[in-house]
């Protein structure tokens, strides 16, 4: 659509800018402020320059939680995206079951995140949980509160349970918007089911999948509440992801400088990845 130039449009945007800036800029300034200073309490601050940034970037603790975070995000993307597409492909296109599917599938998305954690906790506990009990009954030793592998598996499974529906809903909406003529033409051209998927459905889903991957990347990279309630970051530090580590440093140990420096690095990483991904997709689109 051709837009008209109109500087008065700024008046319409002012409330949004004020509200968001109030919430974004002031805290961000506070974080920047902390990240370059040292304090020993009593609101006395000393200039420290980039010391905290160097410290964080060189600390093993940060490297570990960063790598854990990458591994976690990578794993859930690899599982949730194909699974979501698969479920969306096999969902009915019309009829009474569509509503049933949509409502039931969207349900996990609307559960408060700590309830998700608590629910999975009692679901997976080896003594009273259905999942934990069943796995142990199969003869596999499973206890997510003590075994790192079990804790990992449970956290990933919980995230798959919680968020795959988002990918399903996006992919489903994308599939519904493909005109029937494409499927009819494919039939006439003698295309196999695989070609239909590869040549019609996947290309048409590209846009919604980009959004799905971006959202899942962002949200999984920021994940805090669910694993915190489920495992508390343990056993040991095995499920301590970036946010959990950050809160531990900032609110647990009250090391404001390193926490602030880490926050900024963290934020920048998310921004950078999103920007790179977005730019690559757009360039690809332009071709």
């Amino acid at each position, binding site marked *: 659509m051709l837009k008209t130039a109109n500087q008065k449009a700024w008046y319409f945007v002012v409330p949004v800018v004020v509200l968001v800036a109030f919430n974004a800029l002031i805290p961000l300034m506070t974080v920047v402020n902390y990240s370059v200073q040292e304090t020993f309490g009593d609101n006395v601050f000393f200039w420290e320059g980039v010391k905290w940034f160097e410290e964080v970037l060189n600390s093993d603790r940060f490297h570990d939680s960063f790598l854990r975070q990458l591994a976690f995000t990578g794993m859930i993307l690899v599982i949730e995206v194909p699974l979501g597409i698969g479920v969306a492909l096999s969902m009915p296109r019309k009829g009474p079951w569509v509503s049933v599917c949509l409502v039931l599938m969207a349900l996990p998305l609307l559960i408060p995140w700590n309830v998700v954690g608590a629910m999975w906790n009692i679901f997976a506990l080896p003594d009273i949980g259905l999942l934990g009990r069943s796995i142990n009954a199969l003869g596999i030793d499973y206890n997510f509160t003590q075994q790192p592998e079990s804790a990992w598996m449970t956290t990933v499974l919980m995230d798959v349970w919680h968020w795959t529906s988002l990918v399903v809903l996006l992919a489903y909406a994308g599939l519904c918007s493909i005109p029937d*003529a494409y499927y*009819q*033409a494919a*039939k006439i*051209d*003698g*295309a*196999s089911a695989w070609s239909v998927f590869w*040549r019609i459905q996947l290309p048409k889903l590209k846009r919604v999948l980009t959004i799905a991957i971006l959202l899942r990347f962002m949200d999984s990279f920021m994940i805090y509440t669910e694993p915190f309630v489920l495992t508390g970051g343990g056993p040991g530090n095995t499920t301590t992801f970036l946010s959990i580590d950050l809160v531990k440093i900032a609110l647990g140990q009250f090391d404001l400088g390193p926490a602030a420096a880490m926050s900024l690095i963290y934020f920048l990483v998310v921004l950078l990845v999103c920007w790179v991904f977005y730019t690559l997709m757009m360039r690809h689109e332009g071709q």
Partner: protein
Amino acid sequence: MAKISLEQVKHSYLAQPAKSEDYAVKQVDAVWQDGGAYALLGPSGCGKTTLLNIISGLLVPSHGRVLFNDTDVTKVPTIERQIAQVFQFPVVYDTMTVFDNLAFPLRNRGIAEAKVRDRVMEIAGMLDLESSLRRRASGLTMDGKQKISLGRGLVRDDVNVIMFDEPLTVIDPHLKWRLRSKLKELHKRLGLTMIYVTHDQTEALTFADQVVVMYDGTVVQVGTPVELFECPNHTFVGHFIGSPGMNILPCELDNGTVRCAGHAVNTASSGRPRSDVTKTEIGVRPEFVRFDDHGFPVHIVKVDDLGRYRIVEVRYADQRVKMIVEEDAAIPSGSARISFDPAATRIYADGWVVN
């Protein structure tokens, strides 16, 4: 290639059709001769696309049979019917090049790559697509994309029929006639059966040798453009084809004499309608209405000058009649008398012509 016959085909999208209104296609018997250029003409929602999808096998009709060369193919899947279809909106495979798009139906059928190449080059030549063969199909203009859709039908040498479902809807007006004459040219050159669905009478009459007119789920007339103009089978055909459409005027029968508002009218219909019809009308095209001092009296309502001729609208009782008058003929003002050319005036009983 094949002759296509539809025998008592009916189709309803409902699972349990009860009334006749539940059917999108009510009852169609039609034969499409091998190598013919047909147009399927009718207003939106008259069942054209449904009928097309029944022929292509995308739909299985609720009743009746579809025959290709006297073989029953009613339940044969689309791919085995060897048909091609071009849709209203161009369907191209975005991620593939133009070449791969054209080669797609052949490759799916496992044809050797050398042969695929030859066919694609040949068809690309006919459609003037050679220069863009290496480009991605998504970057083409609408008419380019529509040519690819058509090309995917043409590359196969085994097609029985190519069907067009309002293929020019999204094409720019100045490119429409070029694509349409391309279609005519291809029809002459390849001798394929073509069925062209449209709601535009100009498109239908210029493309087809035979026009099939559909109305409300039934075929009302099959004929050449001239036949449709001169002897419409149904008031709908008379009204839908021609500009302006046929005048349809209520009439009474009085001992075999046809009277319009009391005036006797001579017609070409020698038969008379059965006594159980509810509505009797006469139909006469505006081209065959004349001023005549011995005709019946009317008032002149309006004169539209269209350059080469004028359309005069006259009124008697509460009926309006349109007539076409040559540009230099005199038009009386106020009241006048008109008559209808008996050879071109027919009786219609409940919409259907009486011969």
